[in-house]
């Protein structure tokens, strides 16, 4: 009997099904979920609602839009370069429309800035931002913004402005979401923006305060004190500048009734360890969270010294150069507010600009606003600190930090009477920071925008607390002024440039009275200037910060003062030329000394060729200048030759060129080196341990030889080919750290000492906005590097860069003039 045929198992369909499930699973997974660096591909690349919508977003045409909350129609005119002119019939509508326009072009930037301030970056970028978020929540920008908001009375004009502005931002968020026009970065990162609140605007203001004003300098000073010793630290990093500077307020000053500043004493090991732990933590934070040195210029020329007969004003705040830029240019017109200039997206006011009668700009004042306190604790009093003779309980605030792709983190912040405790290692250290005190800056800026004379301008600034700024002023009557507004904290006694005991004796007790802060009005020489230099002479009766480490070395201010104080009258063109001035004041002092030192010295062929380049040099750091390259290499080698042996022998834990501290230590040491070279060539600093007895000329010769050898190795060829542009470039960095969307690096002129500030290799900081006002000709001009839109596909992403790069300015048109200009786009906003 034949057996029944066996049925073959159906293997192939099963294999097929398994393969189909696997492949489909993979495809659907990467389509629906982010995988590694890739976003969820489906929503991200969906051609109708994904990142491709940036193509539509890049178009700006004539439009009629309906906005919730508007009371009357509003007109918005865009010049061909993107400058916005907003004209409203009520103040409320003006601020609402400003919020809408800001959000239309900068919503992602605004969201990043508020997230930074409120410690919620981890929510979108994952645990990489967790340390930043923890630090921000500890420092307290969110707490300060909430306090500022709660302190605004219902009748306060800035409260109304903030509410209207938030409504405008939220109108745009709603519109963008329903039209699938959110910025592509939201799509690619896979999140939607939360509604905007007035507190978010205050957080953005807080970010700027932190960037400009929160320093770790006392920690650095503590480390220097411990490693270098008290004698060298006090000699090399003194309170008063060792070099000759050009303060804008020469006095005379009113008498102060404060205690004298004490001399530096040795720190304990525990205090030094605590300072080092905290310093390392702060140094590891991303750029921008700690103030990294000042660099901004502003000046004014009275009508009596100007060609046009009207006052001149020039301002160029130097900040991190980003794409999109920190600035958004606009004019704001309503019955109660007329201002033109630049605003920070996220805030409803013009920060730098002019109105019908006055113009203003600002630079960072650089005075010390951050103080560290070592809290006294012991095991018998857990959760407490000793202050004013009694044990006090820390106040504790807890925060949950959502983390993208991970579990939420929690941070408890302990608060002493001084401020948040931001380190726990070895020694609890708290930070007293003026940026944590409520400062109604937006209200001040509103009143500045409405001011018509110096008295009103000065009165408005009385309420400006932090960050301290040098506000320069020029009006349509030919008057000029400069006032360094803000808090100047005074401590009862102690050494405020070091971490101080937190037991109460060294607490901040107040501030310098407003009438005694640095300020001038219509000075006899008809010029005023600030470039982050110390504003006052040594005879000023208050401590405002260490000259070496808080204030700029002063070379930009020296150069600006040199140019402005020349005989003859000045024009707006002269202002523009000075803004792009590349003359290095320090080089003009040092190079003649170097050439004198090298005269008669046996030199190699390359060294002789290098000397020939330096002879006859005009000290301009131009891109095609060979002497500029040689000077820069020499100065760096000279610093190294003098100070490296000390750093090595004393094992100093802070690098001389580290960016983490407020100013590079080399900026401070350079002032010493300049002074010794000119006036004290036998200073003991030149005879470092291990190098024997030397003088300044010995160190100069060695440094010059090393500099030429280094350049020959790096650049090769004849010295005549070593142009500055080969080693020095500038770069505008994408705000989201997408290197492909950077601009540059591109060869550029200038250095850290030139009015056209361009320190670094490549330089990423510099004039973030240039403005020149001539009241005599009623001419207003300005430009910033970048463009109005954050969308990289927009023609307004980098359209202003070339104008800025070449040192030119665009006219700042009035709304009426803009409306009749060629190529404008018009929006009609309706209720």
């Amino acid at each position: 009997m034949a057996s029944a045929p066996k049925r073959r198992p159906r293997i192939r369909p099963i294999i097929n099904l398994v393969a189909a499930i696997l492949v489909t699973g993979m495809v659907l997974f990467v389509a629906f979920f982010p995988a590694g660096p890739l976003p969820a591909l489906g929503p991200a690349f969906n051609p109708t609602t994904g990142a491709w919508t940036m193509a539509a977003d890049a178009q700006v045409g004539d439009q009629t839009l309906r906005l919730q909350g508007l009371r009357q129609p509003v007109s918005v005119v865009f010049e061909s370069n993107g400058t916005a002119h907003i004209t409203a019939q009520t103040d409320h509508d003006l601020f609402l429309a400003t919020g809408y326009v800001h959000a239309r072009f900068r919503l992602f930037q605004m969201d990043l800035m508020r997230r930074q301030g409120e410690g919620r970056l981890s929510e979108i970028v994952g645990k990489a931002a967790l340390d930043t978020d923890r630090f921000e929540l500890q420092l307290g920008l969110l707490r300060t913004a909430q306090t500022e908001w709660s302190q605004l009375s219902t009748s306060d004009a800035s409260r109304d402005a903030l509410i209207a502005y938030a409504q405008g931002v939220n109108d745009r968020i709603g519109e963008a979401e329903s039209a699938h026009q959110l910025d592509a970065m939201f799509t690619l990162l896979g999140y939607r923006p939360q509604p905007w609140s007035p507190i978010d605007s205050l957080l953005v203001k807080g970010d700027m305060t932190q960037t400009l004003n929160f320093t770790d300098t006392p920690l650095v000073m503590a480390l220097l004190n411990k490693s270098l010793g008290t004698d060298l630290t006090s000699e090399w990093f003194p309170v008063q500048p060792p070099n000759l500077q050009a303060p804008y307020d020469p006095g005379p000053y009113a008498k102060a009734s404060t205690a004298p500043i004490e001399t530096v004493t040795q720190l304990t090991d525990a205090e030094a360890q605590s300072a080092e732990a905290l310093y390392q933590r702060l140094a590891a934070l991303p750029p921008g969270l700690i103030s990294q040195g000042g660099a901004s210029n502003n000046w004014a020329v009275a009508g009596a010294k100007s060609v046009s007969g009207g006052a001149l004003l020039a301002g160029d705040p130097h900040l991190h150069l980003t794409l999109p830029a920190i600035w958004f240019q606009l004019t704001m017109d309503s019955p109660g507010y007329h201002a033109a200039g630049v605003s920070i997206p996220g805030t409803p006011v013009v920060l730098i600009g002019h109105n019908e009668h006055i113009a203003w700009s600002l630079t960072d004042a650089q005075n010390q606003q951050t103080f560290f306190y070592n809290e006294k604790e012991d095991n018998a009093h857990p959760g407490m600190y000793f202050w004013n003779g009694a044990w006090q309980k820390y106040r504790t605030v807890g925060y949950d930090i959502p983390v993208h792709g991970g579990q939420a983190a929690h941070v408890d912040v302990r608060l002493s009477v001084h401020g948040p405790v931001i380190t726990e290692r070895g020694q609890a250290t708290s930070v007293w920071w003026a940026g944590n005190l409520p400062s109604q800056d937006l209200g001040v800026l509103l009143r500045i925008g409405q001011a018509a004379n110096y008295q009103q301008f000065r009165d408005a600034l009385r309420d400006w607390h932090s960050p301290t700024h040098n506000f320069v002023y020029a009006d349509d009557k030919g008057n000029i002024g400069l006032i360094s507004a803000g808090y100047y904290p005074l401590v009862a006694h102690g050494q405020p440039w070091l971490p101080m005991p937190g037991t109460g004796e060294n607490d901040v007790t107040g501030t310098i009275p407003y009438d005694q802060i640095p300020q001038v009005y219509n000075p006899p020489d008809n010029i005023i200037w600030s470039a982050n230099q110390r504003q006052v002479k040594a005879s000023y009766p208050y401590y405002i910060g260490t000259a070496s480490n808080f204030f700029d070395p002063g070379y930009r201010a020296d150069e600006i003062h040199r140019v402005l104080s020349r005989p003859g009258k000045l024009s707006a063109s002269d202002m523009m030329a000075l803004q792009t001035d590349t003359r290095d004041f320090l080089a003009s002092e040092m190079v003649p000394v170097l050439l004198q030192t090298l005269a008669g010295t046996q030199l190699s062929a390359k060294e002789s060729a290098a000397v020939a380049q330096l002879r006859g040099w005009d000290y301009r750091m131009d891109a095609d200048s060979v002497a500029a390259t040689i000077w820069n290499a020499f100065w760096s080698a000279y610093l190294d030759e003098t100070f490296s042996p000390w750093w090595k022998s004393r094992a100093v834990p802070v690098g001389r060129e580290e960016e983490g501290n407020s100013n590079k230590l080399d900026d401070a040491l350079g002032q010493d080196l300049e002074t010794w070279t000119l006036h004290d060539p036998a200073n003991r600093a030149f005879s470092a341990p291990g190098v024997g007895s030397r003088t300044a000329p010995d160190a100069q010769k060695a440094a010059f030889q090393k500099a030429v050898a280094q350049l020959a190795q790096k650049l090769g060829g004849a010295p005549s080919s070593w142009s500055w542009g080969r080693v020095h470039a500038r770069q505008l960095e994408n705000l989201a750290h997408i290197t492909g969307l950077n601009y540059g690096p591109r060869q550029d002129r200038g250095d850290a000492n030139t009015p056209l500030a361009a320190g670094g290799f490549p330089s990423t900081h510099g004039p973030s906005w240039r403005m020149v006002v001539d009241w005599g000709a009623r001419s207003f001009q300005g430009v910033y590097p970048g463009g109005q839109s954050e969308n990289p596909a927009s023609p307004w992403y980098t359209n202003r860069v070339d104008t800025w790069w070449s040192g030119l300015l665009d006219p700042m048109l009035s709304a009426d003039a803009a409306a009749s200009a060629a190529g404008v786009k018009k929006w009609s906003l309706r209720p």
Partner: protein
Amino acid sequence: MEPAALRIAVLVLTGVIVALLGVLLGAWWTPFFVGAAFGLIIRRPAVAIPLGTVSGLLAWLFPLAGAQLRYGLGPTSVSLAEIMGFDHQGTLPVVLTLLVGTLLGLTGAWLACAVGMIVRPQPR
């Protein structure tokens, strides 16, 4: 045209239109279900899978082509390439985008066909 061929043509056209409408309305995953529908309705994988694939491709291609005609996609594709770390290779985001649409249609049809081959009675 043969009725069977006509039926398939109508089916294909309907599928592409549905997939396209879905994508235009923001439902970017529609091609997957259209592909799956092809796989369930058309019993021959050799026909269903290519149809699903093409419908997915077209459903993502047409809106992209429309955007190109209206706005020009050059700066956008280069920007996306930069964001993704592909330097200035602007064609890569386009290829990636079309690949996603294509794969959605393909896998939908393939999975449906594979399930069909298991659950349907096999011809003797």
